[in-house]
């Protein structure tokens, strides 16, 4: 009777180590493989990998701590205790280095935790941390991004008593601080959105969009929208030639877009020949 009761657990217990012999041993995670997992949105796996990586030197140890923190902020389920642990790790990274990339990245991530990851977000603390980063490393690419992030928080603040008009003025004033190309693009896009909310004149809004274009928009969809907007605001600002140029650029660049007819009609209204662009019109049989 006793044997009957225990026979299956015994058999299973005997099989487990045997199964282990056949189990394939996966290679030990490295910093590279852990980052690759994180880049593929496998955050929990990546965090586990970072926890298993053996650092070879103090610099690797700092990168490891940074990797742990960067993944911990998105490990599911998200908890404030994870955020506290991430902050501790980032502060350790900052304490262990001077002004290298890891230090700046850690400062940036600390501000991101305050702004986006902790519950509830702390906009005031995020602004303080971004300002700190901007003051300490003004030319670093992340400090430049921080200028955009801070401007978002300041302009769209739901706490501030400053009139929206004054916040917009501050936003424009600080535009000069943004020197890095991608940050300038994002900053000018924010200025455009902010200006729209305040019904600023079309010419002024056009100016922001021109700066966005000058930097270069990477994504196709965003670029199509940008050309349409540029055409529209140039048109509204009375810049006929410029409007025609942007409408044509849109038509020549985006052959599969539901706005082509409407844009062609706008060109015709401006007295331009929509056929010039229409000749580029593709049908699905010719080219994508």
């Amino acid at each position: 009777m006793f044997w009957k009761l225990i026979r299956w657990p015994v058999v299973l217990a005997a099989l487990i180590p045997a199964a282990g012999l056949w189990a394939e041993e996966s290679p030990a995670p490295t910093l590279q493989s852990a980052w690759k997992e994180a880049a593929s949105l496998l955050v929990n796996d990546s965090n586990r990998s970072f926890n298993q990586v053996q650092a070879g030197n103090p610099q690797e140890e700092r990168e490891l701590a940074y990797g742990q923190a960067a993944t911990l902020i998105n490990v599911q389920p998200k908890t404030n205790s994870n955020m506290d642990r991430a902050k501790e790790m980032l502060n350790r990274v900052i304490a262990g280095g001077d002004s290298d990339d890891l230090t700046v990245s850690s400062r940036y991530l600390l501000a991101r935790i305050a702004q986006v990851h902790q519950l509830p977000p702390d906009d005031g603390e995020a602004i303080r941390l971004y300002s700190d980063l901007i003051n300490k490393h003004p030319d670093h690419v992340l400090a430049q991004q921080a200028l955009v992030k801070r401007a978002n928080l300041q302009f769209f603040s739901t706490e501030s008593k400053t009139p929206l008009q004054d916040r917009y003025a501050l936003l424009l004033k600080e535009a000069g601080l943004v020197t890095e190309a991608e940050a300038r693009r994002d900053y000018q896009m924010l200025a455009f959105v902010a200006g729209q909310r305040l019904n600023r004149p079309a010419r002024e809004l056009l100016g922001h969009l021109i700066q966005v274009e000058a930097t270069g928009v990477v994504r196709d969809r965003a670029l199509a929208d940008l050309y349409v907007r540029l055409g529209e605001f140039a048109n509204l600002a009375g810049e006929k030639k410029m409007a025609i140029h942007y409408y044509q650029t849109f038509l020549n660049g985006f052959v599969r877009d539901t706005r082509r007819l409407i844009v062609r009609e706008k060109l015709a209204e401006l007295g331009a020949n929509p056929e010039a662009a229409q000749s580029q019109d593709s049908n699905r049989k010719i080219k994508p």
Partner: protein
Amino acid sequence: MNWDREKILNSIGFTLLGACFAYSLFNVATRTAREQDEEVVSIRFAHWQLEAGIRTAFDAVANEYMKLHPNVRVEQILIPERVYPTWLTTRLVGQNPPDLVLLGIGMSDERLARYFVPLTSEVAKPNPYNKGTDLEQVAWRDTFVDGLVTSPGIVNLFDYYGVPNSVSTIRLFYNKPLYQKITGKTQPPRNYEELQGVFKAVQEYSKDLPDKQKVLAVAGSKYNSPILMDRLFASQTQKLTLALDRSNVLRVPTNPQIAFFDGLLDPRDPAMISALRLTRELGQNMQTGFISLAREDATFYFAQERALMITSGSFDLASLVQESDFEVGVAPIPLPDPQDPQFGEYVLGQTSEAETGTNVPFGLAQDSKHPEIALDFLKFMTSQPSNRLFSHTSTWLPSVVGVEVPEVVEPFEPIQEGYPGGIMLRSSGGSEVVRIYDNAFYSLVSKDGSVEKFMDLFLPQYPQAMLRDGKLALKNSLRNVGRHDTTLSALKALAVRGDDTAETKALRLAEIQARQETDYYQRRYAIWSYEQRMQKEKQ
């Protein structure tokens, strides 16, 4: 021997069971034997497209491949849509997936990254099976009509994980002989005014017929009706959408909720009311209770000649033709012209389908036993000659550039000339707005319903529903923005280690994140301002 009924039934049952077992055993044994055959490599591709003609079309393509590669055996596995996600999960987790998998239902970015092979470097090279065609020198990616912009994984992972086989559009199918009998015409309705004429003719035709012989204008169901109603609703709000579009992007803004919180979007707008009137009229010409009927019910209604028309996708052509004992006609959805005396005021014109994306994309499983051969077959399958064979056999639209559309499929070609569709009330918020819209929908389309009755139910709940949806969207948006922080950190770390693609991806992601963040704060501010205004109004 005295056999009673029970014994006979049992014997039949056991015999059947035995036969099934023997058949399964034979199948497994022969498959195992095939797999053991070192000279023949088997690859499998799985999908849920059970529509008529698809299996044959894929078989035709596979047979051509096997002729070229006699040492390869290609098998397709057909799984019903309902069980596909569960089946696939089991196979993926068990590390025993088919080599090629139809991507779509049950797929997430995380799953793509974990179980599938990114095809980004492959799609940048020409497809060797396009040799001798005008696509010989063209990157595989650019041989598709949409340039793979809708490929799974491209939005968040910035990698291509699937290559497509087809394109689909929505059309009106009609019973040709019955249409001629009822309307006296052979041409399908070209606009909504003519469709209204058909509605009247059908009512007149059915008036004196006994119930069982009555014909309805449109076969509706919870699947078929919304696709017709949405298209017509969106025609009514084309001009309104441009008026709401403060960012001058000339289409429905990415975030229509902001227009509501800013006081620009009002469901009582005359264009919205017109759209609701049109929706009611459509509902009146479908079966009672159509919204609780399944897709098969609508197909059955149409095939049994109890409804003159039905709306569905191009993918249903073969099935509808097969199931119907009459000639099936196809026409674009008849939309109101701007000159329409009743519904033309708010219309810009025909809706453009220029952005119709490709579909039926197959991905390469990471655990494929023969990844090189599976990838080679994927290239063959989506080459110009094979896509031509697929399209002509299945009567589905081709996904590859330069493939002539079969004559029977021509009516499904995406309409290039036209305007963007307008905003829809049902999708102006999120799930809460959908819920209150659907709850009130019966009062709009039922016999004793009306637009006013619908609005009496819908309108008082709309602001709160928008607010709930707005706040939920905020939460989701912040989560999305935050998720990118980890990915960006990783991409930058990989870029430092010399990964060039990581650098490019980081640039794209940073741009997306910046846009999403501005959108988030703008929406948050709009909601906050709206609540402030509401509070002041209460006081």
